[in-house]
């Protein structure tokens, strides 16, 4: 696909930015976190009703608007700039992507997509186990005894479940006798224990979900690991857009500080020690933005999307981590305080870099993708 911005992209960006900066600025995320409030339900409703954001990634046949990946990336980028931590990523990206894969073989998946599109349900994706963030190959949670209508009982522990303590429903990757499958579990069902976790990222809540013979429903008979792999590709592109939004905001704030803060009789930004570091930060953001959007402009399921996803996963994770660190350095003492937002970006950077599996393994997959003949060389 050609790399072409449209006026629709621009309008969407303006609208989301306006909404996020007025209704969900970083200050508010911080205040909600301090008060233990994890989910701004009014904002969630506004997103759905006024902008239809939750419907963007849902296909039309399931009640969505079937927007492009670029549209969703624009939303994520703007959310990244304010470190938004509401259920959009978990529900409208991760869950929607899993459900899109399952909808052709499971009516319940299609129905749930419709509910999400309306802003009517929040859904958390429970995948991580055993200290690995997105390693679907090693599923230990079990789903036993599927009846003819797909009812199962699930047992196991899932870690780092975004919005896991609050979501209405859980999508759980579990092992059945037939292989790994995605199962739908009601968040309030018997046998489900959700432990809110203290998190490094103060603005994005996660939970440990313990399932002890909890009732659930298998969503079709697709290989759950293959689904998780495909979801990771698309999700990597969208998470990269969030990373770009956060990194760009970090650079913007740092440049502003360097322009206004004076030391030794001139703005600190006129010293090359500061200036060149900021230039390197800007370079990382530009490159990260190119990678994320080049990927978003590719066709779903194409080899180029996979290429872009892997490049973006590696590049954008490193870019946000590095710019967040540099931001603290260039703010000096003030950037080191709890009151300053700099650490919130660093915290988010660390979470995002791990969430979909580490970047080193993304690079190994990139080798397999671009040079399958070389991959096995050792």
């Amino acid at each position, binding site marked *: 696909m*050609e*790399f*072409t*911005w449209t006026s629709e992209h621009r309008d969407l960006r303006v609208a989301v930015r306006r909404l996020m900066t007025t209704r969900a600025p970083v200050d508010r995320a911080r205040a909600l976190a301090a008060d233990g409030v994890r989910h701004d339900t009014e904002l969630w409703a506004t997103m759905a009703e006024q902008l239809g954001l939750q419907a963007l990634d849902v296909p039309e046949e399931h009640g969505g608007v079937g927007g492009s990946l670029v549209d969703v990336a624009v939303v994520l980028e703007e959310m990244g700039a304010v470190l938004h931590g509401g259920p959009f990523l978990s529900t409208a990206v991760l869950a929607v992507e899993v459900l899109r894969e399952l909808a052709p073989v499971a009516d319940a998946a299609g129905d749930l997509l419709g509910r999400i599109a309306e802003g009517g349900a929040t859904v958390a994706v429970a995948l991580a186990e055993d200290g690995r963030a997105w390693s679907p190959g090693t599923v230990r949670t079990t789903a036993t005894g599927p009846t003819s209508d797909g009812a199962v009982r699930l047992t196991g522990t899932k870690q780092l479940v975004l919005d896991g303590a609050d979501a209405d429903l859980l999508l759980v990757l579990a092992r059945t006798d037939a292989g790994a499958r995605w199962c739908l579990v009601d968040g309030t069902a018997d046998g489900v224990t959700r432990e809110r976790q203290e998190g490094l990222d103060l603005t994005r809540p996660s939970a440990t979900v313990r399932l002890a013979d909890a009732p659930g429903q298998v969503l079709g008979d697709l290989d759950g690991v293959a689904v998780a792999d495909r979801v990771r590709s698309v999700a990597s592109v969208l998470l990269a857009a969030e990373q770009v939004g956060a990194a760009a905001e970090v*650079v913007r704030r740092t*440049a502003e500080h*360097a*322009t206004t803060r004076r030391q030794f009789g*001139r*703005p600190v*930004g*006129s*010293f*090359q020690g500061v*200036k*060149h570091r*900021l*230039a*390197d930060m*800007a*370079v990382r953001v*530009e*490159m*990260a*933005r*190119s*990678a994320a*959007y*080049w990927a978003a402009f590719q066709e779903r399921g194409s080899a*180029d999307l996979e*290429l*872009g996803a892997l*490049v973006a996963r*590696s*590049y954008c994770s490193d870019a946000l981590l590095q710019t967040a660190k540099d931001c603290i350095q260039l703010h000096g003492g003030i950037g080191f305080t709890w009151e300053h937002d700099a650490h919130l970006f660093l915290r988010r950077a660390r979470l995002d870099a791990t969430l979909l599996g580490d970047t*080193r393994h993304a*690079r*190994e997959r*990139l*080798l397999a993708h*671009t*040079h399958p003949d*070389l991959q096995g*060389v*050792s």
Partner: protein
Amino acid sequence: MLLDLSADATESEAFAAADAWLREHLPDDVLAAALGAEWDAVTAFLDDEERGAAWYAALGAAGLSTPTWPRELGGLGLSAAAAGGVAEAVLQYRVGRSMTDFVGLALGGPTIIEHGTDAQKERFLGPLARGEHRWCQLFSEPGAGSDLAGLSTRAERQGDGTWVVNGQKVWSSFAHLSDFGLLMARTDPDLPKHRGISYFLVDMTTPGVLARPLRQMTGDAEFNEVFLTDVHLPPEALLGEVNGGWAVAITTLMQERNGLTGRPAVGEGRSDDLLRRAAETGALADPVLRDRLLLLLVEERALQMTTVRSYAEAGRTAVGAEGSVRKLVNAQIEEETGALAAEVDPLGVLAWPAGEPTPSAAHDFLAMKTTSIAGGTSEIQRNIIAERLLGLPKDPDPEKDLPFNQRARTT
């Protein structure tokens, strides 16, 4: 004669049209050789004095060597992205103009288009497009490198309106092979340094022009020192206003940064070659080297994606500070490529049989700093990025507003 193609063509339309033209106009034997990947035969064709010249003339007349130039000046008037499609088409057959023409086509042409008189455009653009003239750049001086505006080559206006130039330039690629030069010279030393410079188009055969190749650390001699001794230039050699040369030079410099990064496409690059080489030597089995090679692959692909985005977003406007972003990253990639080339084949780069040419890995190792320095150092690119993209203040230059002839001597 110009290719029949709308100025609004997309990249793929431009590619298709150029490809059709090439298949029609390339001599049968050359087309066959290219399709059969017999590149030696293609090179021989281009190097053949008569056939090569005829081909470049045809390519130029069709606008395929200068796709972004306006149609009325012999180009196709395409956007940067669509022009990339044309370049891509030509590249398939490897029948485009060589790197030695970079200064003329990518820098000189656009600068003349933006600042030249009708007579200058008439005189220079056609031959440039058709491959009749090679150009070089006469900007840097021993005492004026990063601080280009500190140059001290003098051009003094005579009573008859002609100019006499004296001075020394350096780092002029291919100057010893060039027909014309893009020259910056000081025309009023009483003015502050940026305001007393003029820009000239110099016939390199003018008496008093002497180009002497400079050997680089790699052993190559691509760059030159150029000595200018009582060089007489006609009035029409001036490009732009008298003492207005800095603005003209900015056009050239922006094109330079932009042009050094490669074409707007995502695919095989230097990191891929290095990965294959590492597989041969066994270095790819070392997980630490392997991950560094993969980081390089990521960086190179991300740079390619950035070039695609820059061209797409630029449309028909000149590329701005993002040219500096790409040049800076390209320099970093080149440096890491050179460093890794040595690590991938550690003994192979250290010694080879006497009389044999330097192995390419050893050459890459020695050339690793080329782009970090040439065409504006990485430090200068960072200044540009910080000032233009981020709006940071300039570093204080105590002599910025001082008349040039009152400044402290630079060494």
